[in-house]
């Protein structure tokens, strides 16, 4: 029997993974179009692109989480059956996600072999063999880990290494790393990169997905740039200047055209009237000393990386998880909301990021969802006013162009874009003075996106103060009048959108907080 950790002979001319002509179509939306993608042994390939560019679709196909509409994937020159996670794992494709997939209360050793521990007869665990195997693996890859440490007591970077070991114990030939440094400090990032370089020498192929351009230039050999579901460029990292890369990522020409139009429409500071003033807001473990002003008739976008605590900030303002320190003024009067109901009574609305978990009642009808924030206007005493409700619903469906235009449908039956419009409509019905939106177009197709943007602009022009949290830079450049950047719970800048280019923002948000 082959020793378990011994890798198959590394043939440096055969790609460890190669995809040809991959496409994925959801209804009328093409998430991935005709993608060719390959990784050679010992290659670290960066996969970059804005949100919605198709990176995650590609990764999901490579991990077997979804099956492509067309196309093939070969692993070590053998064709793989697609759409089956077990098949891809068996073939040595492992993925390390941004969020940990470890069992935090178990030891490093147990985690490495979780679910497939070597056993003796009768299913008893073979602890001794397990330990020997783990040791050999650690030595092989030059990684140092205390096998008996409980995972939750380890620093984040060590936990990442445990995940990597877990993947290597499966004899992984390809490691997909999705934003692996999202939670790491600068020195930890360097450590992780050392580990990656060690893996390279063992012939492991690595796909490195990151928004941090510095990291890509530090550790990657090659890069694949995606935009709008297509691969727009493949190149050696050394031959790709940064400005060119950003341009390819976001489609600078398109963005410039759009933003030229948007520039004319931009209204930094809106009407000049301060609607909401936050001064030194802090919440322990989330954000610190956040100060900004939001004006009537403007769209202020807060951008940054996942983990920058932007959602926490808006939730604190909305009162669903109040802040500890600082002051907030609404129309000049000091306020602090202890519940969403209180915020709404003051005309503050909040469209949460996760429409399924936090935004909508999927099993209830479109109409019922639309009136959820304004029940008080739809009743006489305890009784619902059916006629008025139908009217409100019809108007909203028409104004938002919800398809199909039938208020009796369960929201579950609508497409993502239409669900998002219902969610938006539910809050517009409130007639808010301040409307906050968290990632308002996640998982929404391009057409619905454009509609949502024009709805937001119209709302702004009515004098509403709008605060948008968004990680999608193209979105930020398209709709923002002013742009605030958050890094690690601090607001590092607030500027007029006219003074910023996409490249400026990428540089700012990628800056590591000390």
């Amino acid at each position: 029997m082959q020793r378990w950790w011994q890798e198959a002979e590394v043939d440096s001319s055969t790609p460890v993974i190669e995809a040809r002509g991959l496409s994925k179509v959801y209804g009328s939306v093409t998430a991935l179009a005709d993608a060719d993608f390959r990784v050679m042994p010992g290659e670290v390939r960066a996969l970059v692109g804005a949100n919605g560019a198709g990176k995650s679709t590609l990764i999901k196909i490579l991990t077997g989480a979804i099956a492509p509409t067309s196309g093939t994937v070969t692993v070590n020159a053998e064709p793989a059956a697609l759409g089956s996670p077990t098949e891809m794992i068996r073939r040595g494709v492992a993925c390390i996600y941004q969020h940990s997939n470890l069992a935090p209360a178990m030891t490093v050793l147990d985690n490495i072999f979780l679910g497939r521990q070597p056993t003796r007869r009768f299913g008893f665990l073979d602890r001794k063999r397990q330990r020997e195997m783990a040791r050999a693996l650690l030595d092989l890859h030059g990684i140092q880990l205390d096998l008996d440490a409980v995972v939750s007591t380890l620093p984040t970077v060590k936990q990442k290494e445990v995940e990597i070991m877990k993947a290597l114990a499966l004899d992984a030939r390809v490691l997909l790393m999705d934003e692996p440094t999202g939670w790491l400090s600068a020195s930890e990032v360097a450590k992780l990169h050392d580990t990656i370089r060690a893996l390279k020498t063992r012939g492991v192929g690595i796909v490195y997905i990151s928004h941090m351009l510095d990291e890509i230039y530090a550790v990657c050999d090659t890069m694949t740039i995606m935009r709008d579901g297509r691969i727009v460029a493949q190149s050696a990292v050394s031959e790709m200047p940064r400005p060119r890369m950003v341009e390819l990522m976001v489609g600078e020409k398109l963005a410039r055209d759009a933003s030229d139009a948007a520039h004319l429409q931009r209204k930094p500071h809106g009407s000049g009237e301060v609607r909401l003033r936050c001064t030194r807001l802090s919440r322990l473990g989330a954000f610190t000393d956040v100060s900004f002003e939001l004006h009537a008739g403007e769209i202020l976008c807060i951008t940054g990386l996942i983990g920058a605590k932007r959602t926490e900030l808006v939730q604190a303002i909305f009162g669903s998880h109040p802040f500890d320190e600082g002051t907030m003024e609404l129309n000049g009067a000091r306020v602090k909301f202890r519940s969403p109901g209180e915020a709404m009574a003051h005309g503050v609305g909040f469209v949460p990021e996760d429409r399924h978990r936090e935004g909508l009642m999927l099993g209830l009808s479109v109409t019922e969802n639309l009136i959820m924030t304004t029940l008080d206007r739809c009743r006489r005493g305890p009784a619902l006013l059916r006629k008025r409700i139908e009217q409100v619903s019809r108007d909203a469906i028409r104004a938002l162009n919800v398809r199909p235009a039938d208020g009796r449908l369960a929201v579950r039956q609508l497409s993502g874009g239409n669900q998002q419009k219902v969610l938006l409509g539910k809050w517009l019905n409130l007639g808010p003075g301040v409307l906050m939106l968290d990632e308002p177009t996640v998982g929404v197709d391009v057409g619905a996106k454009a509609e949502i943007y024009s709805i937001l602009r119209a709302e702004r022009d009515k004098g509403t103060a709008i605060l948008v949290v968004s990680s999608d830079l193209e979105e930020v450049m398209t709709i923002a009048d002013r742009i605030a950047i958050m890094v690690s719970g601090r607001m590092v800048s607030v500027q007029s959108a006219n003074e910023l280019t996409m490249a400026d923002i990428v540089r700012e948000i990628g800056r590591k907080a000390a």
Partner: protein
Amino acid sequence: MNANHVATVGGERVARLVSSNALLVVIVAIGLVFSLVQPAFLTAENLVGIVRQVSMIGIMALAMTFVIMTGGVDLSIGPVLALSGLVAVFALDADHPLPVVLAAALGVGLLIGLVNGVVIAAFDLPPILVTLSMLSIVRGTALLLGGPEMHSIRGQPGYSFIGTGSILGIPFSVYLFGAIAALMLVVQRQTTFGLLVAALGDNERAAFLSGHNTRLTKAVLYALSGVCAALAGIIQSSQVHTGAATYGEFGIELDVIAAVVLGGTSLMGGNGSVARTLLGVLFLGVMNNGMNILDVPIDIQLIAKGVIIALALALSEFRQGHGGR
């Protein structure tokens, strides 16, 4: 894509129509079998009798529907039924006027329900554990007050009327059940409260983020459940002219929950219907009555009932799993 939508919508409508009427079909079918075997089943007298028999479980099942829709459950209703009956008996013994007697008995249920609701809502505790603890506490309290013996009610025509009186040949408890059922139907379909309960059951977090006081709503539901259990206790003690700490044992809460779930309300919360719960209640009533009429021994009855409920639930889960998505 649009045609697709329409097709699935149409399909789900049909599925929903079938699934909401399946129980009715089953009830009619079982009724037919019973009446063929034993003609005494299909008499006006017997049918009214069925409704009278289920009125207590029915009243409790109405409130339980709302509770289960929010993903909760109230297991304390059995002992609440016993305690409220006892309290009524003692209040009658002390020669209090009828309104005071009723207020005291209902008040006990309200209080216990409120404690359940406030504890569950304020501390985010699992309802099954809170109400299970309450089951033990209330049963103990009832035994403390009443001891193991029966307490018979001395002549109080007003009180006896609740359980034994009739108007136009129909028992008063049937009117009571009918009135509460009508009220709950209106609450569910025509009030903001009913909509809020549905919203809470579908997505509690979203309801909270839509500015609703989800905790208050939950607390009110358990209070409602307590009151309904107390009302059932009044009917029970009035029907048998006694109060006892041991009433409502032998899994009365199980019958209530079964009726609700038979009506298609998922124990995981979400979509539920008072109207369909009424069908569930009727189903249990027909089953019990039919088996009584056919002289099925009680031991076999219990086993048969358990099997039938399990089968019916499996069927409805199967339907939800395959028709709903």
